């Protein structure tokens, strides 16, 4: 029942945004719906905690604690993003940068986007997950190209081409899983594809042919890895995330990539049982370290905030991949906590950067100066967000990174931790240096302040900053207080680590 509700909610949103043109009321309603989504997610999690996994519509949809966790993440970030969407839309209309039609279309696509992600996490069949993930690409292409200028179009072109190819490869991988499953007597081609069901696969994973699974998992990792932003097909990510409007970037960087990783996790669970943990471990380490190296190298000379944040997403996905490589229950729990923490903080940062675009007119590092001096709250949010992103306590990323690395060492991957710590230190230095350029400083900041005072300054809106501050507090809270998240994380991790 809850699953139905969770799917009906965004469907209603889609319907609403189809029927009505955008207005503040519609925006607020959608935000409220997304909040409801978050609440339903939490309720669902509690439900599952007490009664076990739930299914809906003839087991087409299935939710265990992992799914419910992902629903919470999606709900949370969607809520933040839709709140900022209101501010974004008002500004767009006020500045005559977009027409009402465009905004309405944007709202519709965003809601579809949210729906497809939800669909992905509550689908019982791995093939349907694929369909949903591919659908996210379609829904977001126009969102990436929202500006319709040269850069935006280029980004959306790259985005759809690279992601289609990648996700196509993931489909090949799915086919091989299906192939393996079919050979152990899973029913083929009936109207309800039981043999592609997650529950069926995990139950029978011991019997699956390891070589085919290996082959399939390679494709899965390459394919969904593309969507997650892992090497080698990560290249679309900085372009798309930087060109999309801030609320969409928040959604993409905050949840979309982790939804893709969620899929990898599911397949990993099957592969681990069928082949043995070493296999996915080796692959994930290779991919993770490569991505981390790429993210680090490319962060060094960043000139634009949103691109910087996008590379940061690659870094965190790489960390998550390394954490998943460790594979123990704590490691997976930490990975999930990291998914939540990263999503939250990254969404906050993207929204803050959107606010910067509104108030400062640019997100280029060179053009932004001494934000802390003349916009203390926005600058403070951005700065604290960056600190959180860099894995400093009390924010949850610290806890999750700590736990992931600890588990990595405990399965004998000390060298991985060593390398990643060195790379992360470089990232730390680079990001701090960028942050210094953006946030800190004196003289020029004062000049900007003066000039902006003359020409009707745009102040950061409370509508934006209040949820962001609350989000940061939440991020700190989940990093400090165990209850009640830890139980959920551990039971969700059990789904993967067995």
């Amino acid at each position, binding site marked *: 029942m809850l699953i139905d509700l969770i799917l009906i909610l965004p469907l209603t949103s889609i319907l609403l945004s189809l029927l009505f043109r955008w207005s503040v009321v519609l925006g607020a309603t959608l935000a409220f719906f997304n909040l409801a989504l978050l609440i339903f997610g939490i309720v669902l999690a509690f439900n599952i905690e007490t009664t076990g996994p739930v299914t809906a519509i003839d087991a087409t949809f299935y939710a265990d604690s992992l799914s419910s966790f992902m629903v919470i993440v999606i709900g949370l970030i969607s809520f933040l993003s839709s709140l900022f969407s209101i501010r974004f839309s008002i500004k767009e209309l006020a500045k005559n940068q977009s027409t009402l039609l465009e905004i309405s279309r944007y709202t519709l696509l965003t809601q579809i986007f949210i729906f497809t992600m939800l669909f992905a996490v509550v689908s019982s069949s791995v093939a349907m997950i694929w369909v949903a993930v591919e659908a996210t690409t379609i829904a977001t292409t126009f969102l990436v190209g929202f500006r319709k200028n040269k850069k935006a179009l280029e980004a959306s*072109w*790259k985005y759809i081409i*690279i992601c289609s190819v*990648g996700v196509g*490869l993931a489909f090949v991988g799915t086919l091989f899983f299906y192939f393996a499953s079919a050979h152990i007597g899973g029913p083929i081609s009936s109207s309800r594809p039981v043999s592609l069901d997650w529950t069926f696969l995990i139950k029978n994973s011991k019997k699956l042919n390891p070589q085919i699974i290996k082959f399939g998992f*390679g494709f899965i990792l*390459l394919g969904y890895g593309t969507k997650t932003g892992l090497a*080698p*097909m990560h*290249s*679309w990510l900085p372009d798309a995330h930087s060109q999309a409007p801030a609320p969409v970037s928040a959604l993409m960087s905050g949840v979309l990539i982790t939804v893709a990783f969620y899929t990898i996790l599911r397949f990993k669970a099957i592969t681990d049982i069928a082949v043995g943990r070493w296999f996915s471990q080796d692959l994930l380490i290779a991919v993770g370290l490569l991505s981390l190296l*790429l993210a680090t*190298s*490319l*962060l*060094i*000379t960043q000139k634009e905030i949103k691109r910087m944040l996008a590379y940061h997403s690659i870094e965190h996905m790489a960390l998550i991949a390394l954490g998943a490589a460790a594979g123990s229950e704590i490691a997976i729990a*930490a990975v999930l*906590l990291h998914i939540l923490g990263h999503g939250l903080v990254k969404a906050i940062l993207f929204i803050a950067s959107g606010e910067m675009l509104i108030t400062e007119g640019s997100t280029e590092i060179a053009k932004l100066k*001494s934000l*802390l*001096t003349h916009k203390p709250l926005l600058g*403070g949010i951005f700065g604290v967000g960056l*600190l959180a992103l*860099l894995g*400093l*306590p*009390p924010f*949850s990323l*610290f*806890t999750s990174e*700590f*736990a992931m*690395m*600890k588990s990595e*060492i*405990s399965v004998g991957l*000390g060298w991985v*931790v060593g390398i990643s*710590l060195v790379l*992360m*230190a470089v990232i*730390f*230095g*680079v990001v*701090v*240096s960028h942050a*210094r350029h953006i946030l*800190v*400083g*004196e*003289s020029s*900041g004062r000049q900007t302040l003066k000039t902006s005072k003359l020409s009707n300054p745009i102040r950061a809106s409370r509508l934006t900053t209040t949820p962001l501050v609350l989000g940061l507090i939440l991020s700190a809270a*989940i990093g*400090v*207080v*165990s209850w009640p*998240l*830890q139980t959920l*994380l551990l039971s969700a991790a059990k789904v993967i680590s067995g």
Partner: protein
Amino acid sequence: MHLLFYSFLVGSIGSFASLVLTKKYRNKFASFCVVLEGLICSYESLSIISSGKTTTFNSNQLLPFFGIRLSLDPLSAYFILITSLLAIAVGIYQLGYIRHSTKAKTPTFIYPFFFTSMVLVPISNSVATFMASWEIMAITSILLVLTDHAKNNNSGHATQWYALMTHLGAASIFIGFLILSLGTKHQQFSSIVMSSSSLSTIEKSLAFFLLFIGFASKAGATPFHVWLPRAHPQAPSPVSAMMSGAMVNLGIYGIIKTGMTLIKVSEGWWWIVVIAIGTISAIYGALQCVTNSDIKKLLAYSTIDNVGLMIIGIGASGLLATAKDEKFALFMISGVLFQMLAHSIFKGLLFLSAGSIQYSTGSLNLDQLGGLLKKIPLTSTCLLIGAFSISALPPFSGFSSEWVLFEGLFRSILHLSGVNRLAVLFGLSGFALASGLTATAFVKTTGIGLLGVARSSHAETAKEVPPTMLFSTFLLALSCLVIGIVPGYFLKLTMKSSQLLFPAKKLSPNFKYGSIDLPNLATNIDPLLLLVLFTIALLMILLLLKAAIKRKVRITNSWGCGNEYSNSKTQYTATSFAEPLQRVFADVIRPDQDLVVSHVEESRFYVNNITYSNLSQDSIERFVYVPIKRAVTTWGKFASQMQNGSTHRYLSLGFIVLLIVILVLS
């Protein structure tokens, strides 16, 4: 233990109240809370030290996956004591200081958390708890360093260095702890202690050095110090005082904790390396301290110097412990702790006085100051007392503590053998050179800054600071004097605290009238007696002179060798004062000297203008860290070709990997 929690609560109330309260009450209330927190903490720590008991606190409700583990023992209580004492003084000082320095709420909001985290670090009893409090300490201090960023462009740079170095340090500590905890299969420090002997030598050495590097970088030991002389001067003075006086100690705490408790059985050669690092820090810090002209920068370097001394002491103590001479190991480590106490107090005093000078003159550059003793006598007196303490002049605290340190090193030389003895001798030489250089540096600071004539309008118009600031500095100055005069009582305290490290051995000290008299040392000092003798001598001489000679003093111009154009510009400056030493140690300091002579157009024999510049930069920063930075940037530029915008290139990467997948995985 619970008292500590209440104190944290008080601090948090203060900090949150500062967000809500109006400007008028904000500082007062926040400072009040900090002082109260400090008082509670110092009371609790004193009672723990005197009872010698250990209390613990565990909870799984906090910190997901790990839970928090706390344990308060006399050693950690000692560190808390130092921190709280300094925090009290700084809390009072801030009442006057903050009012003019910044209008923002952030510092008042963060400061209690900074303090709290510094209390949490020594009582952390598990890897995760420790790392969390360590990082919170780092982050709060980073934010505090940034306080004045709007007025001062350098603070951003400083913060950047600090953040990066502290992060590297934390990473090193993190790996070190993980090696320990995985080798022993324990999370909790108290359990690691029990089973650390099960580790192999390589594991132990690796863990030790990773931890040592991490902690040494927090303590500011060369060559991991580069952040310190940048961050400490850029922070507001109360924060610098806390950082130099208290936060640095926690680095020392980490080293002691690692080498003497966590890893029970240590190897001798570790400590030789430790002594080497300590010696280098001491000498390098002192040298840079001499050559710098910015008061706070100079103080920051002297922190490095003092930390070096403490590390030498720790090394010697470690060597003694490995040589099973635990009695003197205990004495040595007590000396280190005593030096730490003294250092915290006088460095706090010096930084706060520097803050007062900045407050009243607006400058910290010695070359712009001068004549302050007449303009702001009270603040200057405090600075003088701090300078005398740090120069180890009797009867101030530095003298007593360095005496204990010296005696400890002397005993180590006597009781060790072979290369260990040589190492300690090396350390002692470094100690000696550093103490000589420090005296020079502080003659420079006080002589150039406080005496002579004002070198700029800044110093000309100096006014005395508000009474709260004065009160705080006087409090610290008085503490310097008290610690110096009756060191016995304080040494007893440190011995009680460090007893934990060597529980088997007991020294039977005889601390009559606060003097230090240990039967094993065959020597003693009694600063109180010396002070009394000195005072009597002084008074008698003055009386004699007064009785014998009754001439008035005639005030004239200074004798400048008949020079008719002498003014404040012809005085010696801090830079020129340090020039001989800079020249002697040019190979280490590597100053950038530049002499530009421009001639009049008509003839090259007529000089128009001579410009001389003498910049001494941190040579370790220049020759170690800057090349690394450059290499990273070069790599980044090179790597950015990867992302050149070509869709084809992006796809072809995937294509190649796809082919590999098909080939390899089938």
